[in-house]
């Protein structure tokens, strides 16, 4: 995003820094992967819907093809001891990455009694409902959103 900002705002001056910031903020509340939404927003601001499509395809299509090729590689390497050792290493790293993602999501919401309580109740409740009682994700997400909507004291002062 930093690289795009330098290129589009400072060097080429295709959009203002205010619009760039708006695209960044709204991409964070758009469902799906934030960076894809960000590129769609930037593309739309510059060239409308065509720009949005071009930006999203340019960002994702080459990487998607590469990802499928990597999966194919994994499948054909199943019997190879050396390849499987390397894959086992990356699988362990991915597990650590998941915990890092959880921490990254939670960290901005920690601090202060009310905020911590919300983290424990909503995130902890979501975990328990899914892990212990096998509640499906949609009702948990809906409940979390509703609790957040009704209990708005968790704003950072």
């Amino acid at each position: 995003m930093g690289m795009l900002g330098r290129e589009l705002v400072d060097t080429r001056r295709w959009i203002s820094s205010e619009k760039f910031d708006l695209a960044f903020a709204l991409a964070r509340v758009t469902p799906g992967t934030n960076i894809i939404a960000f590129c769609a927003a930037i593309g739309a601001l510059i060239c409308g819907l065509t720009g949005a499509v071009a930006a999203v395809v340019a960002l994702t299509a080459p990487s998607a093809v590469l990802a499928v090729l990597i999966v194919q590689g994994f499948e054909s390497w199943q019997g190879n001891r050396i390849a499987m050792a390397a894959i086992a290493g990356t699988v362990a790293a991915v597990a650590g990455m998941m915990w890092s993602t959880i921490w990254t999501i939670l960290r901005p919401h920690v601090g202060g009694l009310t905020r911590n309580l919300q983290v424990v109740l909503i995130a902890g409740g979501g975990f328990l409902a899914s892990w212990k009682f096998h509640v499906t994700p949609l009702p948990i997400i809906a409940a979390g959103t509703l609790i957040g909507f009704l209990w708005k004291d968790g704003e950072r002062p």
Partner: protein
Amino acid sequence: MNLLLLYLLLLKASVTSFSGLGSLPMVRNDFVVERQVLTDHQLNMAVVAGRTGPGPNGLYLVCVAYAAGGFPGAVLGFLALVTPAFLVIPLMRWLGKRADIPRVRSAIRGLLLASAGLLLSSSVPLTLDAFTGIFSAVLMTASFAVLTFTRIDSAWLMLGAAAAGLATLMFH
């Protein structure tokens, strides 16, 4: 697997998440728990493949779709991945004026916290699947530390982890 169903399941996972791996709980629930199209190990491999190359974190959805539906599945997985991004265009018009309303921010916060709880619940079985001994535990901890406390790109981490995995062969 029915391709339309595959697309709709992945779209549901993509639409109800707000980060690359945020869709993982929904994907695991639909593909591993409910329909048993994939195993936890296959899901782990899809996440690894999605994170090994360059590109957005959510790319693992394309790998999941490929594992479940071959090349046509991968194309639909790609579409499910990018479709929600276009919601940002009407959102720029609508929410742009309301993003500062405390109750809207608070609802989004509740949604993010619930997503974190769900991700926690999905991470436990996937971590157990990845755990094969002390070495894997060390790699998990190192991976967590590197991604949390440094700005090193995850692709480098994957390469390092693969090299560490290869190094273990020397000790056996």
